């Protein structure tokens, strides 16, 4: 059952369309990531859900309660929705304890205990309770901001690029611990990010926004392997996008005949292969050498554990550059002829 229902949501700023007829359902206790390039309307969507912005049209409902119906909106401070902005926005004049306790009624008897409990949840030492925000590291600030929002026991938590200010190593650690806290608390979460890897690893559901429109929503796996179109495919990761002929459940392309999920009309189609679907091996050994597809290594980009290799394949007189991932242990030299084998099925994109 979905907790948050968004339907037909639109918002314009003057000439600029920020959101265009967005529909989205967020299941209860799930984690949804909203991704999209800069300016695609992610923050606007979050701000409308939180109640800081009025939509032009469309509805937002949380657990049956209508929060926005066109320009009619419910007051933000009574929505019970947690919000963690990009830089945490901790109150600089309050200590960590006062920040966390900001949303708890002052007369609440269990206030101190709750603050301590929340500190445990975000794994910060209780001795930090008296510190001021500027005496915390970036990651600690983010976790305090999360605890502050959790203190209200929100039904829904909104995170707007909360990790983008952190450096790469810390970002992953903080993201994991935040995900765990939210999981434990059983809180439905929406995370906004422009980092597709973050979205895919964090969420149960990923929604891709592009120019204010919802391009596609689904599980990370579905979106990664079965994107609807080329832009979504490339936004979520590297891919080889090729022209192919479809017939009888197979496509024929520069890489040979590849099985695919069946239902398409016979004729020219566009297919997508992820780099990890293509295996490289030295040309001239292996079995079925004559029928196999060959190419020449053009460029190698060293990337630590996984390296990106560009292979040029000639087919029907056209040269195709294809990106392949390979372990850095078995890198071919540039200029080598290699054999390419496709693992799994090709995915047909909408044109």
């Amino acid at each position, binding site marked *: 059952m979905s907790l948050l229902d968004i339907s037909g949501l639109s918002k314009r700023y003057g000439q600029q369309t920020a959101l265009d007829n967005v529909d989205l359902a967020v299941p209860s*206790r799930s984690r949804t990531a909203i991704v999209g390039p800069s300016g695609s309307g992610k923050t606007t969507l979050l701000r409308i859900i*939180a*109640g*800081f912005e*009025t939509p032009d049209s469309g509805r937002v409902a949380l*657990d049956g*309660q*209508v*929060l*926005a*119906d066109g*320009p*009619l*909106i*419910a*007051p*933000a*401070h*009574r*929505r*019970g*929705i*947690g*919000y963690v*902005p*990009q*830089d945490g*926005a901790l*109150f*600089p*004049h309050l200590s960590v304890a006062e920040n966390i306790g*900001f*949303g708890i009624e002052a007369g609440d008897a269990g206030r101190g205990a709750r603050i301590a*409990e929340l500190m*445990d*949840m*975000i*794994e910060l030492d209780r001795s930090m309770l008296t510190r001021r925000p500027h005496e915390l590291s970036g990651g600690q600030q983010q976790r305090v*901001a999360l605890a*502050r*929002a*959790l*203190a*209200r*026991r*929100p*039904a829904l938590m909104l995170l707007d690029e909360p990790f983008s200010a952190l450096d790469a190593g810390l970002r992953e650690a903080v993201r994991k*611990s935040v995900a*765990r*806290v939210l999981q*434990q*608390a*059983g*809180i*439905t979460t929406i995370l906004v990010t422009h980092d597709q890897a973050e979205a895919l690893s964090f969420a149960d559901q990923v929604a891709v926004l592009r120019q204010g429109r919802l391009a596609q929503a689904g599980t990370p796996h579905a979106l990664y392997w079965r994107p609807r179109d080329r832009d979504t495919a490339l936004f979520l990761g590297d891919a080889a996008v090729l022209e192919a002929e479809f017939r009888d459940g197979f496509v024929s392309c520069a890489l040979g005949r590849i099985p695919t999920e069946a239902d398409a009309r016979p004729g020219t189609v566009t297919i997508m292969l992820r780099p990890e679907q293509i295996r490289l091996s030295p040309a001239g050994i292996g079995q079925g050498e004559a029928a196999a597809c060959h190419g020449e290594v053009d460029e190698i980009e060293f990337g630590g554990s996984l390296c990106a290799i560009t292979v040029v394949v000639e087919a029907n007189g056209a040269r195709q550059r294809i990106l392949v991932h390979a372990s850095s242990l078995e890198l071919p030299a540039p200029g080598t002829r290699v054999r390419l084998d496709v693992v799994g099925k090709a995915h047909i994109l909408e044109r």
Partner: protein
Amino acid sequence: MSVQTPPFPASRALTTQPLPLRRDRQLGAKSLFGLAGLVSLVTLLPLGFIIWITIQTGWETASSLIFRPRVAELLLNTALLEALTLPACIVLAVALAWLTERSDLPGARLWSWLAVAPLAIPAFVHSYAWIGVAPGMHGLFAAMLVSVLAYLPFLYLPVSAQLRRLDPALEDAAASLGLAPWRVFLRVVLPQLRIAICGGSLLIGLHLLAEYGLYAMIRFDTFTTAIVDQFQSSYNGPAANMLAGVLVLSCLGLLALEIVLRGEARYARLGSGAPRPVSLRKLRRATLPALLLPLALAALGLGIPSYALARWLAAGQGAVWQAPELASAFGETLIYAVGGAVVTTLAAVPMAWLSVRAPGRLQRALEGSHYYVGALPGVVVALALVTVTVRIAPLYQSVATVLIAYALMFLPRALVGLRSGIAQVPVELERAAVSLGRRPLLAILSVTLRLAAPGVAACMALVAMGITTELTATLMLAPNGTTTLATQFWSLTSELDYAAAAPYAALMIVLSLPLTALLHAQSRRASGQ
């Protein structure tokens, strides 16, 4: 994280009743627009009063009161005063600013402080000092001399700040095009000072129109002195009101003139990179004659008042300090200053927040009314409040009325300070507070204003210091028996007891010193030094 923590139950913080849906343009904006609109209505009182009283009086009576030799004489006096004082101030301020900012004048920093310091001396104390050393002094030229000395800092401050900001590369370019140094100054530097000169001149022009004490003391008649005289003799007659109408027209005329003269031009540095520090022009043999200018101005603007004050203080010996009136006037002044600062700041808060967080057409219109009222002379504000309180609300000669008058006169000061304070608080903090369940107005109070506190304190100090030396409105509106430093000083000098007045002047100067230091520091900071 810690596994032993029991799962945190997700529960709706909401009540079970459905939430109301409202057409809310912005968080808290609606109620603040209401409050700012209310303040704007009050700011329109003086102008509304003038229009209403003119209609009430009727064209016959009004024209007979306006078109008469006395008004022509006052108009001529005022016009001559403006026409003589402003050019003199401009020339002196530009010369002085150039010497302290662009030449290797010895002790430039000290001279720059001394150029601003006369601001700490209330204008009417300037003329009190001059009367003390030259008792026969009165008439147009006396008025001009004292005005120049008292108000020159209003031009010196912006002009010197602008000179410091100018990119010297432009002057180098002009010189490389073959222009002699003085032509470079006329054709490149002076045009870039236009906005600063216009702004400073407007401020001085408005002060010349509004000042009462300075001119009354040396018996030079302006609209303001005439209105106060009328008011004191015939209370609230149509004659005073019609004079006030002409005075308001003069103010609006000055405002319009400044807009026309300032033009649309904006002088900013094009191109990238930080400007190079200026190279100072060597004065060489001109150093000694050049020193005469700041020396003379300091002697006349600071030396004479100090000498006169010292003499009166010595004449009065210790006894004048022991008058019980002095302590009570000091106390009352402090109470009025603090009360007025609080009221003014509170009145400015809604507008300040809106102009930072909710800019738009309505906000600009409301803000315009907040600013215009500061340009009106205190005497007009006071007349309007007298009429309103006598006829409508029975608050005449009450503390509340005085505080409202202060709020109207010093609203722009408070607004400028508050606005920059609020602009430094990220809007995200306010939103975070709201998402944590604070009502929008409470969020503004407990987060935004709390964090803007240093700015709020500074603007309250500015207002408080303005009130400390306010004379006209206090004289006209304060409850009977009220004695502030300014009014007590005024009544003592009216009785020609100059020695007894001296401690009051000294206290006002001491209380104004921080303001002067603040203004000087601000102009330094504005130009990045």
